[in-house]
């Protein structure tokens, strides 16, 4: 793997690492902001996969398209991530207003 030129597999490995980092970050952090960071990491991993799979070698209709579908998706995802972050931060702010903390373990209102 290390002798080969950079290919899709390398990107996927990076993406996977990023994804796992994000998951670990989400599950370990008690801070809401930290969880948000993890979410961003997971999103980034997904976006990286989009970009990686948009490379010409994977395409069969090269003449008919510009070959930037993955990039467009990536851009959309980034915009959505920004919006999501805004909403999530608003939740965090409200949560703080109500509970005077942003520790998610203290939020057990949904307990059955």
């Amino acid at each position, binding site marked *: 793997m290390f002798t080969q030129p950079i290919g899709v597999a390398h990107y996927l490995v990076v993406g996977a690492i990023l994804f796992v980092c994000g998951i670990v970050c989400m*599950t370990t952090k008690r801070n809401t902001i930290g969880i948000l960071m993890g979410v961003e990491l997971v999103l980034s991993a997904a976006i990286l996969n989009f970009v990686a799979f948009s490379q010409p070698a994977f395409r069969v209709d090269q003449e008919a398209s510009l070959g930037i579908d993955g990039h467009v998706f990536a851009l959309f995802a980034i915009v959505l991530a920004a919006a999501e972050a805004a909403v999530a931060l608003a939740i965090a702010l409200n949560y703080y207003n109500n509970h005077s903390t942003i520790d998610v373990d203290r939020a057990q209102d949904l307990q059955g």
Partner: protein
Amino acid sequence: MNLDRMLPLLLGGAWLLPLLAFAIIALGGHYLKKTSSQHRAGFLSTVAILGSFVLAVVAFSMWVSDQGLGEPHHGPEFERAQLEENQTPIQLAALAEEGEAEHAHDGVFSVSGVWYIWAQVGEQKFEIGYYIDALTICLFVMITLVASCIHFFSLGYLQEELETGIKDHLVATSAGEPFERVGRQHRFFQYLSLFCFSMLGLVLAGNLLMVFIFWELVGICSYFLIGFYFERKAAQDAANKAFLVNRIGDLGFLVGIMALWGVLGTLTFGEMSTKLAELAPETQQQASPNKTTIQAASFLQDEEAKATNDEETADWNVGLLILAGLGIFCGCVGKSAQFPLHVWLPDAMEGPTPVSALVHSATMVAAGVYLVARCYPLFTEEVLLVIAYIGVITLLMAAMMALVAVDIKRVLAFSTISQLGYMMLALGVGGWSAGVFHLITHAFFKSLLFLGAGAVIHALHHEQLLIRMGGLRHKMPWTAGMMFVGCLAIAGAGIPGLDWGLSGYFSKDALLAQAYAFAQVNPSHVYLYWLPLAGKALTAFYIFRLWYLTFAGKPREKKLYENAHEAPLVMLIPMMVLTYFAITAGWQIPFTPSSVTTILEQALPAVASFETPWAAALNYPAEYLSHQYHTKIAWTAIATAGTGFLLATIFYVWQGLRPDEVQKQFGPLFRFLQAQLYLNEVYHFLFVRPLHGIARACSWIDRHLIDPFVDRMAKGTVNLARLEDQGDRKLIDRPIDWMSASFYDLAVQLKATQTGMIRQYLVFLVLGTVGFFFIVGYLWQL
């Protein structure tokens, strides 16, 4: 002016107006009652019937201007002699033309048609149609006129029904107090309007089926009105009796209709004469059976048998025709209270007096006479003979019962039965126009008499017994005077020399003359003349007995007499109108040679000239032939009536003979008559008691055979239901309960997984996803 179009329109309107009033009162009576003036219902009915009267009069005048008043009929010889004497050739030609035109439609001009086809079965149609001829028009005017008068009278007579608390002294509650109830004048007028509608419909009807429908409708109105004071036991019984006795007659009527349908194939009046004409030659062909007839038998194919079969068909047809005639007359016997079904009419006097005047003397009971007149061509000689004899029996029997009746209304009721007997007699001996003429004059003077009786009863606060009245002429001079005129009219008073008299004089004269003419040519039936003549004396006697006992002499009950008062104007004016007609209904119309009779004669049907196999070889003298006897009969009749009048005066004014002594002398006869020949008891024994027995047996079977069975069934059903209930609980409810309980437990257990810890959820999510992919991947490899 188009008679064909206008007459149905006018008479149809006159017919439907009372129905409108009925519908408004029946549907809105509650609101009419609630408003301050309860009179509204009465006014509505009165206005409706007045409108009908106006329409009828318009129709009558149109008829007269188109058809003329009719000429007095003196027979061909007389006419020819007159023509030869003083007619110009032009007039002769015109008269001849007229004769031909008359011939063209069989002498009777009529307007008939169909409004609506009710049902159609193959070729047969059941129609709602009309048949209008001179008879219809005259009866329309008579009915609406009498009904209008009686509506006005009722407004006064039933004044007390407007109050909210009426004490009915004839009904006692369990506490012994007089029964108190709310007045129901609106209901009275509702039924009165329904009655007018039904009666007019009966006269207007275009076929026998329609007649039957309205026949039943007037019957039910009569039932309602007799039972107007339905809290009284006597009124209930009387209403039931009238209804049930009429059912017997109606059964015969229905059989007659079916028989007629079988023989003629039509019930429409307009078609009957042509169908009869088709039938007549056939029946007369029996001598020459070789001729083929219209109704050749289809049962037997054999040509040789055909000849005899034709003869059988003819016999069969005549038999059916006789059955039809007798059946229809049976209906008339019930409705017109002829012997032996007359028993309901005296009891029907339980109704309010205006009802007795309108329904039970002037119109409804005359419907039977009307029907006989309408179906006249159908009756064979045998049937006519039966009609005549039933009429004679009825008139004599009822007149004798009227002699001993003590209730003022019952005297008049018996008198009505007797007069109806006269009409039937006249029709039975071939005096069509005499019978119908008497129907019309009788309607006027008898409703006058009833209204007078009503005024007396009203004045005496519902006292009806003659023996408690007397001397009332000082208190009620107008009523007394008008009733005296009515009495003179019914007795047939007149001056034969001048040929002047009250209406009853003319009609009874025509009637007796016809009976005399009949007896002349059929010597074996001479009693058909002598008995009615005797009845005339009885009529005069009982009617003046009534008048003397009520108005003459000294008051027998001081208290009643002191409280008596003259009737109010609203009651007196209708009586005056009726008095006018009771006097003049028989007179010649000024400046013409015509009278009511000649108008009626425009509808004179031809007597069926059937040679029936069982005919008693009767001769029916044409009506104009009886005119030669008029003067003679008039003298005889006036002498007889005068005897009756004289006897009544001797009995009750001069006191020459004491009624109670005569009563003692003729004790058995007196009691026999007073008990109405014990017919009620006989009927009770023959029909009512067996019927009660059957009813009791049915009740026993019901209780002891059917009820236990039904009870068992019910109990079985209850047990079955209980079993099923148990099954329901144990087999169906329990598993369902267990299922729901276990689901609940499961849910309680699963609740623990909902920790509310976000990070834990996330871990589960991730682990779940990863696990899912592992499984998928593992399965993929397989």
